[in-house]
């Protein structure tokens, strides 16, 4: 295994985060803080508890998940798209690195950045809302698993995209609505029965539900189903990436 190669890609991508700290870290932290202020402190104080959890605390897992998903996709898609755009991808393609090593470098860095960001947001949330974590191990596991899965998804988008607009389409037009409708601000039990059934087709419901269970021990769906659905999506992404490298799709003509 080319460990030096993986390390080179990983270091390069992490250095990019340092260079763009305003955009990579500060901007999502500020956005999430605004959610805490508006929905947690201002409106939340007038809302009733959900499952005996204050509204401000209830929305924390969903908001962390929102940032985690968006940043994982954004980091990984930009990470691989930029070398394609600037032409520097030639170096990666001509280097003695396997596709597994390329993915480990790019996706590993993207997921690391997202996990760091998630932890920063959790720490910042403490300033606004009192919350606790019932299952710390599972909380970190969900954080890492989701970051890796959606970084893989972002990697696929970065290879598929042939313009900056396409990079934004999936996160903005698909992922954001799914997160908002996936139980970030409410429990799906609060919806009419038909909408509860429809919500079960939204994969983000399982992510937020599982993550929330790690915090408070309450969930919309069983935690095992949440882990299972995340692993299914992870497998789908890995299979797609395997196919991309096997065929050279948009990388090697």
């Amino acid at each position, binding site marked *: 295994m*080319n460990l*030096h*190669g993986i*390390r*080179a*890609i990983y*270091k*390069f991508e992490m*250095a*990019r985060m340092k*260079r763009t700290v305003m955009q990579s870290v500060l901007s999502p932290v500020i956005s999430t803080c605004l959610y805490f202020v508006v929905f947690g402190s201002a409106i939340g104080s007038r809302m009733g508890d959900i499952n005996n959890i204050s509204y401000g605390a209830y929305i924390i897992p969903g908001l962390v998940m929102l940032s985690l998903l968006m940043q994982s996709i954004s980091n990984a898609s930009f990470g691989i798209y930029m*070398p394609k755009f*600037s*032409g*520097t991808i*030639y*170096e*990666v*393609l*001509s*280097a*003695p*690195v*396997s596709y597994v090593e390329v993915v480990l470098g790019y996706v590993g860095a993207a997921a690391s950045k997202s996990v760091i960001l998630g932890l920063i947001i959790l720490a910042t949330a403490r300033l606004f809302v009192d919350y606790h974590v019932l299952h710390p191990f599972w909380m970190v596991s969900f954080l890492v698993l989701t970051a890796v899965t959606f970084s893989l998804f972002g990697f696929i988008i970065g290879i598929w995209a042939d313009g900056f607009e396409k990079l934004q389409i999936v996160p903005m037009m698909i992922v954001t609505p799914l997160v908002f409708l996936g139980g970030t601000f409410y429990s799906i039990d609060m919806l009419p029965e038909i909408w509860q059934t429809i919500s079960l087709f939204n994969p983000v419901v399982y992510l937020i539900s599982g993550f929330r269970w790690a915090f408070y021990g309450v969930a919309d769906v069983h935690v095992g189903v949440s882990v299972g659905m995340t692993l299914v999506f992870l497998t789908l992404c890995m299979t797609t990436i395997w196919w991309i490298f096997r065929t*050279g799709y948009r990388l*090697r*003509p």
Partner: protein
Amino acid sequence: MQSDISVRHLNKTYGDGFQALKDINLEIHPGEIFALLGPNGAGKTTLISIICGLVNMTSGKVTAGGFDIVSQYRKARETIGLVPQELNTDSFETVWDAVSFSRGLFGKAPNPGHIEKVLKALSLWDKRNNRIMSLSGGMKRRVMIAKALSHEPQILFLDEPTAGVDVELRRDMWNLVRQLRESGVTIILTTHYIEEAEEMADRIGVIRQGEIILVEEKSRLMSKLGKKELRLQLQHQLDRVPGELTLEPVELSEDGWELIFNFDSQHEQAGVARLLRTLGELGIEYRDLQTRESSLEEIFVGLLND
């Protein structure tokens, strides 16, 4: 002697049906400078891209450093350094970081001493902490070469290395290429500047419409296909080529003051002697004569027009 690069029956057809390479066979020997010449769209870059792993081949077999580029791609790619045609660099990185990144990518442990040596050889040492975006085009070209040399490759591909660089930098590049060859690196370069190939190459390959039409040692190529031209400045103006000279390929200049004789460099003695003897017999006097050997560029253009 085992070839550093061996290409056997290589074909490439792109998805749109365009056949870029047709049954290419090529052997490149260790330690030589091989110049690949051809017009735009001839297939030079496709050939290099396949050997370096940027483009998938349709059929054939290619080895680099004795390793198959598909089944032993790691070993094969470790031996290769590539300087592409375009100035593809990461603008926000410093020179040092960019070159160190390339070394790591190719599986080599950090070696600041080697990076320093490469940067000094390319006159980049003073710029090592500068961001690449702040460098001139010529300096960026040097960075590309430094990146390609960072992992100490045995084979170096230079795809149009001096395109768009000034004369001074071009001379520097040529010196660097010679130094690399002396250190045992095999160099394959594509170029539009025929004088570059003439100046540096040991062997020359010409590719046209995806086919290799000629591979030859430069000196043999020039003696085999080269033409010589003899120009005689006459004492008295002529209005036509005398009939006695029509057996020779002799032309009269438009103003009638020069006789021009083109001949194969391999048969120069007989043709020139016969011409001068005939002129003497006809009493045609000349005050001066000049000979000129055709350049590689003229040979190249001749090959493409055949």
